[in-house]
């Protein structure tokens, strides 16, 4: 009878508990990556924001042309 699998659940639990601390430290200090993960905005709203920004860009260019005199 192969009883190698018997230890697996415990090993996994141990591994998980060992990994918890580094994860916590990482959350507090690293903050690397996942820059957009917390953004929860509907796509349609974001599209509207992009349209407004493009409008502002065009307006700024039109107002700016020839202004350096």
């Amino acid at each position, binding site marked *: 009878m192969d009883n190698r699998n018997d230890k697996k659940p415990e090993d996994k639990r141990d591994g998980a508990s060992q990994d918890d601390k580094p994860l916590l*430290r*990482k959350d507090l*200090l*690293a*903050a*690397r*990556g*996942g*820059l*957009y993960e917390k*953004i929860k*905005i509907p*796509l349609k709203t*974001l*599209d509207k*924001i*992009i349209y407004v*920004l*493009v409008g*502002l*860009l065009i307006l*700024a*260019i039109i*107002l*700016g*042309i*020839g*202004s*350096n*005199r």
Partner: protein
Amino acid sequence: MGSNMEKVKQENRQSAGMFLLNNALYIILLLILATVVIIRPDFARLDNIINIVKQASTKGILALGCAGLIVLAGTDLSIGRVLGLCAAVTASLVQSATYVQRMYPQITEPLNLMIPLLLAITIGVAFGAINGFGVAKLHLHAFIITLGTSLIAWGINSLYIESQPSGTAQALSTFTKDFLNTAAGNWIIGTVRIPKVVLYFLALAVIMHIIWTRTRLGKNMFAVGGNEEAAAVSGVSVTRTIMYVYLIAGALYGIAAYLEAGRIQSVGTNTGINYELDAISACVIGGVSFSGGVGTIPGVVIGAIILQAINYSLVFLSVNPYYQYIIRGLIIIIAVAIDVRKYLAKK
């Protein structure tokens, strides 16, 4: 039959919509350039185009370095100041021996041009190592560590320039002809003068493209940028990968500084100011995502050239510099908004 046709039409509309959204920034910027050409047809002259690519080259080299850091979901705020310091060291070593107020009067023979280049690269790599160590080993946020090194580089640069025998902080200028020819000279093909800096930029872009796409480091970089924990579990050394990417970026800043000193021909304490904004903007416009793990070198090259073309066209249209800041700021925000949209659509 009818419903199938409608489905195909709907799919076509969706794919066209996705294409427009994914390339929205390129389309907007190309439309702006097309408008400029219509208003001022002389904008599209060959010498203007060569000027744009020449000016884009040094900032493009900075963007090549910075792009790797953004792929790692990091950034670098020290680019401009590190470039300033490296350029000051380069400038001080390539001043003409006949110039009375040179930084090192004891240098009476022109130095081998490799010496200032290697020194500039060494300084860039040293700052890259500090930034990389802070991010990879100390797990500091890239914004913080690179902000700190930016101030350190600026301080050292100002002290260095002030240490001239004249006791003033005047800009370092009057370089040897050899240096100017190497860093800022032209290759003449027929009647066309191609700036050497453009060729250096393209050569470095090819090397970086090979590193990104053909080497283990490149694959590891995308793996770490995409999902750091998954990469670590797969056996990728996250620390080593981050360190290498920062070191390569530092080396590129050193090369860019050497070339920039030749291009502007006068290096002061304010040299390099805000260059990081242009480098980061070029990356974002070129499709390198701040979410990490996404980006291409051809995209960065195109981004650097388009950004410079926009800057050049604004000067061409006599746009007030204050409006130019607003326009450039809006371009960056739109680029990031489109990037976020792509991220959310994929999710």
